[in-house]
């Protein structure tokens, strides 16, 4: 198809799609008038049932914890997929280049590593009490690890997160989620059904399985994001080869 024919086809479909969406959206309640009941029920019962203060965290790690298990494995699959697709750079022994040459930039970057890691840990730890949690904190932790790479050199980064260790951490943390689910299933409850004490509302040890799954998610996310970013950065560390055809 020529660019013009493609655009015409899209325009014809786009008008129809716009009409459809408008018609569908017109059946929704007015903005600001969420009709419920799902969210309202959870807002009413979650704090009492789960002793955490963030209902979003209770939803993510308990009521809809199985979605989060799937989500973790999407990230996990993506890390494996990116490693598969970008394996060529990893397999060749090329001269590695440092991506950032400027020394001041490096120094500033290294200074940021500490805050990034601390912030990440904080966001993970208080995720079920305040906004934040395993995913957001995990990305921050991974960012801290990557800063070491960007500010230091590729080789230093390889020392901080050697693939062996990261793979091990990612695999173990990802395995922990279904393993915990199966253990709780074997103990006579449902898959992922909480049997741990719920603790005092608002304390770091509250919520039964929620903190456990939160930390599991944090480790998986940190490792998976680190692996993904590392694969992309490794692409930069080897010279580009001419295409074969």
């Amino acid at each position, binding site marked *: 198809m020529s660019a013009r024919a493609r655009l015409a086809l899209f325009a014809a479909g786009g008008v129809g799609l716009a009409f459809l969406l408008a018609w569908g959206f017109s059946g929704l309640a007015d*903005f*600001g008038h969420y009709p419920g009941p799902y969210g309202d029920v959870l807002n009413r019962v979650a704090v009492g049932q789960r002793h955490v203060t*963030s209902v*979003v*965290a209770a939803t993510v790690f308990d009521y809809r914890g199985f979605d989060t298990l799937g989500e973790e494995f999407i990230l996990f699959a993506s890390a494996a997929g990116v490693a598969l697709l970008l394996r060529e750079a990893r397999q060749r022994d090329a001269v590695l280049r440092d991506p950032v040459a400027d020394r001041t930039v490096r120094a500033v970057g290294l200074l940021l590593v500490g805050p990034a890691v601390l912030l990440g840990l904080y*966001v993970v730890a208080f995720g079920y009490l305040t*906004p*934040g*949690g395993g*995913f*957001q904190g995990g*990305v*921050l932790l*991974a*960012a801290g690890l*990557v800063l070491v790479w960007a500010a230091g050199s590729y080789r230093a980064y390889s020392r901080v997160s050697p693939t062996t260790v990261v793979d091990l951490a990612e695999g173990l943390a990802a395995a922990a989620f279904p393993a915990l689910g199966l253990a709780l299933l074997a103990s006579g409850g449902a898959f992922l059904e909480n049997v741990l004490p719920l603790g005092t509302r608002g304390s770091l040890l509250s919520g039964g399985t929620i903190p456990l799954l939160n930390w599991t998610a944090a480790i998986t996310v940190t490792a998976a*994001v680190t692996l*993904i*970013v590392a694969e*992309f*950065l490794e*692409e*930069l560390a080897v010279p*580009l080869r001419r295409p074969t055809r």
Partner: protein
Amino acid sequence: MIVLQVVSLALVASGAVAVVLVRDLARQALVNALYGLALAVLFLVLQAPDVALSEVVVGAIAVPLVLLAAIRRVGRRT
């Protein structure tokens, strides 16, 4: 609807257009990061701080990182 919501909705609506229309890859990555921040602001005024935080760490850290690495790899204009 409060003014802040209307403003951030307008910002997001025009941000999306900007991301699509900027054809230079490096510039698009930058605009895309700003679009992520605009989304985060919208999520904040929609009372979704968790989601806003996610959008910030993804839109302003993770995505630009891989995107810039990919762009550097293939060259800015291909």
